[in-house]
């Protein structure tokens, strides 16, 4: 009985039924058979959902439509900036998904007709679906900072979607003179990877310390605090020179928060000068991470609310605006879960189980979700935050499981922090394999 899974039971049921007729059926509509799922976007959420639907019910026809041939993970991309890892080490393709029987189409989705249940692409193709899963990640609010748009971002990278942007920023850091200034502008909430800008600060500081020790980092932040706040501040202080009591004081890292005038209004690309309330800051390398909203297709498909994100039912991730369309990952409003890769992976599995159950004519199963997020401050100093989530049926929303989760202890224990770093790498290996292999 040990391997008597639901899937095997289903197969056994079908086999028995077919055997009983002494007739053979090529395919007939049973369970999810012949049902079509189209996944828009092959990032962490989309790829996970596609793979897990096929694992849960191999009779469902699953197509992923993704513009790019390769996916670069945002997580661990800060280690590419410091030179601790190569860009190639965060690159993943789609052959693994194909082995699970997922159809991969490299095209750009331009529209979704929710009434006719058809996805349309720039290439002129149409894909009909029984259920559609939309996972487009984030887009930027280019209007937020005067003088900073998609064109300017080619030379002043955001590097908040990994790949060529990561490569550009790395190249600029490598080309910077010792004694130069790196200016970073984190976004307002909510945004993809809440600890990301502060891990990036640490990784760039680590690179400077090893190669350009006279250099400095100025963070112009529109916020008063951020994820893993205490852990990052003490980590910056321990490794690189930062004064938590006087964040604008001497030391490699200066953090100018909203109260100190860190909110940025404009950028002059010609002189690489950022204008904040506190004054003008000229950088040798500038990294602006603009405020964010749901990916473009979420808007054209009419899946967003007035704040620019997609409202969903947390049990199924079905859009509360359009039936038969599910939204997962960064674009979705899945509070209290953060916009992280692991959250997208976890949501994708809950969504996949719901989609499979609904295609088979049943109700969505009881969900369980998790998030773990690692940051590496410096070699041998990893930190993490974790949380387990459940679905509150009566309130109809995702909730944190009381008593679970939390941060790495603030007291610095070198042995524990070294282990956290190794577990961070293990998480990277396992989640990328869980998504793409």
């Amino acid at each position, binding site marked *: 009985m*040990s*391997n008597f*899974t*639901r899937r095997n*039971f*289903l197969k056994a*049921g*079908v086999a*028995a*039924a077919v055997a*009983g*007729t002494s*007739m053979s059926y090529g395919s007939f509509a*049973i*369970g999810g058979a012949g049902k079509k799922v189209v996944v828009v976007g092959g990032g962490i959420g989309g790829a996970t959902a596609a793979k*897990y639907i096929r694992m*849960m019910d191999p009779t469902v026809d699953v197509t992923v439509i993704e513009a790019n041939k390769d996916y670069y993970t945002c997580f661990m991309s800060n280690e590419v900036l410091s030179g601790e890892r190569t860009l190639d080490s965060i690159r993943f393709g789609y052959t693994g998904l194909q082995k699970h029987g997922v159809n991969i189409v490299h095209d750009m989705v331009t529209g979704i007709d929710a009434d006719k249940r058809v996805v349309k692409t720039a290439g002129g193709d149409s894909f009909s679906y029984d259920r559609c899963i939309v996972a487009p990640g984030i887009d930027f609010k280019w209007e937020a900072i005067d003088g900073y748009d998609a064109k300017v971002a080619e030379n002043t990278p955001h590097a908040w979607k990994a790949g060529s942007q990561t490569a550009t920023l790395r190249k600029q850091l490598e080309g910077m003179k010792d004694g130069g200034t790196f200016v970073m502008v984190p976004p307002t909430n909510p945004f993809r990877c809440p600890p990301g800008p502060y891990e990036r600060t640490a990784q760039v500081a680590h690179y400077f310390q090893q190669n350009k020790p006279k250099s400095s980092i100025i963070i112009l932040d529109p916020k008063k605090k951020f994820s893993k706040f205490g852990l990052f501040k003490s980590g910056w202080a321990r490794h690189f020179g930062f004064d938590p009591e006087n964040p604008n004081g001497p030391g490699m890292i200066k953090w100018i928060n909203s109260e100190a005038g860190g909110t940025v209004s404009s950028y002059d690309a010609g002189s690489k000068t950022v204008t904040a309330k506190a004054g003008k800051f000229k950088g040798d390398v500038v990294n602006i991470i603009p405020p964010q909203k749901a990916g473009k297709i979420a808007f054209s498909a009419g899946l967003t609310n007035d704040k620019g994100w997609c409202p969903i039912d947390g049990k199924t991730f079905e859009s509360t605006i359009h039936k038969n369309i599910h939204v997962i990952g960064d674009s979705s409003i899945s509070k209290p879960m953060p916009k992280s890769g*692991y959250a997208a*992976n*976890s949501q994708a*599995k*809950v969504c996949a*189980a719901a989609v499979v*159950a609904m295609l*088979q*004519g*049943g*109700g969505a*199963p*009881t*969900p*369980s979700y*998790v998030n*773990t997020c690692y940051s590496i401050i410096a070699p041998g100093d990893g930190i*993490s935050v*974790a*949380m*387990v*989530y459940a679905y509150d049926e009566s309130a109809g929303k995702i909730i944190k*499981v009381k*008593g*679970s*989760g*939390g941060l*790495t202890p603030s007291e610095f224990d070198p*042995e*524990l922090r070294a*282990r*956290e770093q*190794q*577990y961070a*790498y*293990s*998480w990277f*290996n*396992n*989640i990328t*394999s*869980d998504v793409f*292999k």
Partner: protein
Amino acid sequence: MKQSSILQTALLTCGLAFSAASFAGSGPSGAMLGNTCAGCHGTDGVSNGPATPSIAGLDYDYFVEAMNEFKEDKRNTTIMARIAKGYSKAEIETMSKYFADKEYVRANQTTDAAAAKRGAKLHKKYCKNCHGDTGISEDKDDDSGMLAGQWKPYMTYTLADYQSGKREYGKKMGKKIKKVQKDLGDKGFADLLEYYASQK
């Protein structure tokens, strides 16, 4: 209309099978819970390493005990205590059953052949009685950990915790650990871990 009645029967069978699997009790299914572990422990609990252990095929009682120890802060961990606190007793049991039914896959890792050979001899002398002939006990009733083919960094951490007293061990294991330490020192442990890690 033979075809359609067969189809109905099949649908009914599947429908029943499905509801039985999904709605037995009100909590999440084993697969639903198990899927949350995959990001760190690998799809179906088979870890790609280097440090997170594989949990596929772990003995049911061992799994329950480990989760309870994490939950009650009785085991030295980085993150597992924080995560284990998110699951109820029933959920831990469901999860344990799910992983106990999965196939254990030994890790593919580089090892030192000479050290592994020395380790094999030490295993026979000091560890075999509880951990089985090769590092996985055949006796389903005992609660010894699975060592053969487990990730080396994880075993290194575990051993360090035993040695430093951060993790408690039974009387028998304590005796053996002290004996290895006395007879062979740290090298003895290193050889043992190479032996376990070398088993593919």
